[in-house]
């Protein structure tokens, strides 16, 4: 039987990771002062699912920890437990420990029981009622406040006011739901709440009624002090994130009939209950969307992608045959073929979109990273995520995590200044960090923007000098920024455990380039910097130039090509054994593709062929080919799947006629240039 169970381990572990991600996400969004019941339920369910699954596989370490977590959330949703920023910190670190445990189970190693015990002990301490004197107060249950409490969710503002003026429909961004309650129907309250909730996506459409504010802020600390304020009230609330204080002044709310609040009027309770229901309706939607997705093995999708690729090729073969025919039948065939072509194209797009995932899969982990890191660095940072819905190939998503994490850490560590420094520079204390994804044409742009100090040109140059990194003469800003991506470069005055080991940016650059992307840096001293990653939409397609040598087709990736020239005899010079091209006073060593690929060229003389000027990260050279065929997008196929790596070749593709063309690897062709001693001086 144990054999049978182990086949489900993978699914359980994958699901548990998802549950943990969800927990972390919800915990970060949870407003400690007035937790939303629906969110508490979701967290509880996530913890419970992990516990249930662990029980099935006898993953005892997971059971122990999740059991205590479950207790906390269970009590919290019954209103018997009060959250605080410290509690959430504790719970988040418990989530981390669960991840570690899950990892050790997935690797079939023994879990670290010491870790389990500390985690459990910490959680027990959180649960300990002694540290939560308010619990009893809450437990007594003030009927009036329970629905109110539910309605005022984390970061989900509620419209109503201490003056018992609730106005529906008129939503002027920040305030303005004031109208005598007597006129307000339940529908209006519902409408108002929905309107506000839509707003709340923006994050700052923030309303808090005084009654509510008083309740959420003071009830739990002081118990009964919330009927006192009648005059202007200053309300300070935490929305969703302890590092993100927002103060809302409600001085200007007219307070007409405080008595209405003082007495427990049944109508108000009824209205607020209605609000709660309206709110639950809104919440229900995302969950039903979740339920309608299924888990599919990526291999199945890949095989579909391949099959559709084949269909496209067969389709173009049919077109070739169709062109040979004439007469009325041919007419009909052409009609059918163009129909088929449209359908195949849609099918291809549809299948490719299955592989696409929204960028939020990557972005969603950053609120946590930023929260932890800004706390550690004593910086105040407001993280904004834009374009999380932008879709990108799954293969790229996974490989983006590391480079993006590095860029975000860099921006936090080196970019955004300490609050004091920011204040001295007349900037708001709260630094801005923006993660943005957008699609432009066939590319995805992912940017990490900060409003920090920007890159320091002089310090970079000094550091480059210190580390003996070659610097061009009179470098432009762009060239200077590129220097930070050289190996062994770090400008951090001190090496911190956050960033600054000098193994950073060059690795980031390499990772991005291996995805066929580019990293562009812009920076303005004092105003911040921008790191922009540019990626192709999918890994599977490459912009290439097809060229011919000796009757065989090859593809050169377009990113490597600078230009193509037909050289005059006078431009061809000889240095030792190496022929070079003299173009505008630069010498380009010539690599003969027919020699590399062992084919018979049309002509061995460089002036009778075409020289394609190629630039790689290491060097530049001119590639001699017979002729250029044209520019096209090609689908990259692996040679290694059924054969082996071939030097100078990055992969293969299938041309419209079904034949195979090899995609050249400019980097490894460049190695041939470097091998030649004579050339080295000229590169």
């Amino acid at each position, binding site marked *: 039987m144990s054999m049978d169970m182990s086949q489900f381990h993978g699914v359980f572990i994958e699901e548990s990771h998802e549950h943990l991600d969800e927990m972390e996400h919800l915990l970060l969004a949870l407003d400690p002062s007035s937790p939303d019941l629906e969110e508490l339920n979701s967290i509880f369910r996530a913890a419970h699912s992990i516990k249930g699954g662990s029980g099935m596989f006898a993953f005892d370490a997971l059971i122990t920890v999740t059991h205590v977590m479950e207790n906390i959330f269970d009590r919290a949703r019954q209103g018997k437990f009060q959250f605080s920023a410290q509690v959430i910190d504790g719970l988040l670190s418990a989530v981390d420990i669960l991840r570690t445990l899950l990892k050790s189970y997935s690797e079939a190693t023994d879990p670290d029981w010491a870790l389990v015990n500390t985690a459990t002990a910490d959680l027990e301490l959180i649960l300990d009622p002694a540290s939560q004197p308010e619990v009893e107060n809450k437990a007594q249950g003030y009927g009036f406040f329970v629905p109110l409490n539910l309605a005022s969710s984390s970061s989900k503002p509620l419209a109503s006011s201490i003056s018992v003026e609730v106005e529906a429909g008129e939503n002027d961004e920040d305030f303005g739901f004031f109208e005598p309650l007597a006129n307000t129907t339940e529908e209006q309250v519902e409408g108002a709440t929905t309107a506000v909730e839509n707003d709340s996506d923006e994050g700052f459409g923030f309303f808090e009624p005084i009654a509510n504010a008083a309740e959420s802020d003071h009830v739990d600390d002081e118990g009964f002090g919330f009927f006192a304020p009648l005059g202007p009230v200053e309300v300070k609330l935490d929305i969703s994130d302890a590092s993100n204080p927002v103060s809302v002044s409600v001085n200007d709310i007219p307070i007409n009939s405080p008595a209405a609040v003082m007495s427990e009027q049944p109508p108000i309770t009824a209205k607020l209950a209605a609000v709660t229901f309206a709110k639950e309706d809104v919440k229900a939607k995302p969950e039903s969307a979740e339920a309608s997705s299924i888990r599919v093995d990526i291999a199945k999708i890949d095989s579909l992608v*391949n*099959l559709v*690729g*084949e269909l496209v*090729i067969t389709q173009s073969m049919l077109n070739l045959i169709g062109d040979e025919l004439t007469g009325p039948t041919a007419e009909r065939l052409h009609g059918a073929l163009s129909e088929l072509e449209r359908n195949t194209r849609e099918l291809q797009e549809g299948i490719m979109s299955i592989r696409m995932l929204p960028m939020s899969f990557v972005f969603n982990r950053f609120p946590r990273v930023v929260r932890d890191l800004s706390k550690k660095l004593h910086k105040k940072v407001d993280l904004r995520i834009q374009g999380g819905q932008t879709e990108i190939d799954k293969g790229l998503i996974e490989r983006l995590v590391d480079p993006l994490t590095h860029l975000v850490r860099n921006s936090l560590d080196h970019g955004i200044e300490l609050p004091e420094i920011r204040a001295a520079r007349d900037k708001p204390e709260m630094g801005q960090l923006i993660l943005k994804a957008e699609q432009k044409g066939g590319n995805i742009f992912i940017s990490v923007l900060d409003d920090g100090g920007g890159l320091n040109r002089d310090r970079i140059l000094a550091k480059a000098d210190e580390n003996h990194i070659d610097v061009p003469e009179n470098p432009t800003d762009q060239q200077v920024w590129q220097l930070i991506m050289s190996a062994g470069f770090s400008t951090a005055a001190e090496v911190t455990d956050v960033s600054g080991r000098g193994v950073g940016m060059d690795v980031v650059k390499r990772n991005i380039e291996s995805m066929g992307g580019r990293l562009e840096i812009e920076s303005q001293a004092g105003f911040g910097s921008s790191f922009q990653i540019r990626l192709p939409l999918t890994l599977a397609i490459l912009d290439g130039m097809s060229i011919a040598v000796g009757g*065989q087709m090859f593809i050169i990736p377009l990113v490597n090509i600078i230009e193509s020239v037909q050289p005059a005899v006078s431009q061809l010079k000889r240095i030792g054994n190496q022929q070079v091209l003299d173009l505008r006073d630069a010498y380009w060593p010539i690599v003969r593709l027919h020699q*590399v*690929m*062992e*084919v018979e060229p049309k002509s061995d003389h460089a002036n009778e062929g075409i020289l394609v000027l190629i630039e790689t990260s290491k060097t530049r050279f001119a590639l001699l080919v017979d002729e250029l065929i044209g520019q096209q997008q090609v689908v990259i*196929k*692996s*040679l*290694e*799947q*059924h*054969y*082996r*790596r*071939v*030097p*100078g*070749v990055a992969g*293969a593709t*299938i041309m419209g006629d*079904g*034949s*195979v*063309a*090899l995609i050249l690897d400019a980097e490894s062709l460049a190695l041939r240039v470097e091998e030649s001693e004579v050339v080295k001086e000229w590169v």
Partner: protein
Amino acid sequence: MNNQQAVAQMSQDTVSLEYLTFTLGDEHYGLDIMKVREIRGYEPVTKIANAPAFIKGVLNLRGDIVPIVDLRLKFNVGEASYNEFTIVIMLHINERIVGIVVDAVSDVINMQATDIKPPPEFGVAFDSQYLYGLAPVNEQMIILLNIEKLISSQELGLFDNNAVALEG
């Protein structure tokens, strides 16, 4: 499932085996039909640089880039000519697809394991480690290949060394 497979394995070992027979020059060979994915005519291939002559190149098999090996060149039997009768047998070995060029495909034969004679130490083009045995059929001697071992051998260099090591 496991049990069924085990039984099938046993029956293959002791009872009956199916072999696809083909010719290289004048010699008749056979290989385990379970390794055959399909049989097709020879098509022009894309040449691969720096590869030994017996690796003709790669071709597109419904989206997979598949290497093609000419066994006649590798083992110096017959003449490596390519015409409309030249046959490529697509093999499915260790999750990989490899095509082999042969002169002709003859038949599918049923063979009792007891009918298979041990291979001779010499006298055929193949190294005896790639031979499974000899089988007399209709007064002909068919040389049964251990095609899996042959294709994944380092001698052929079809797979990267580490891949071979992984696949045992």
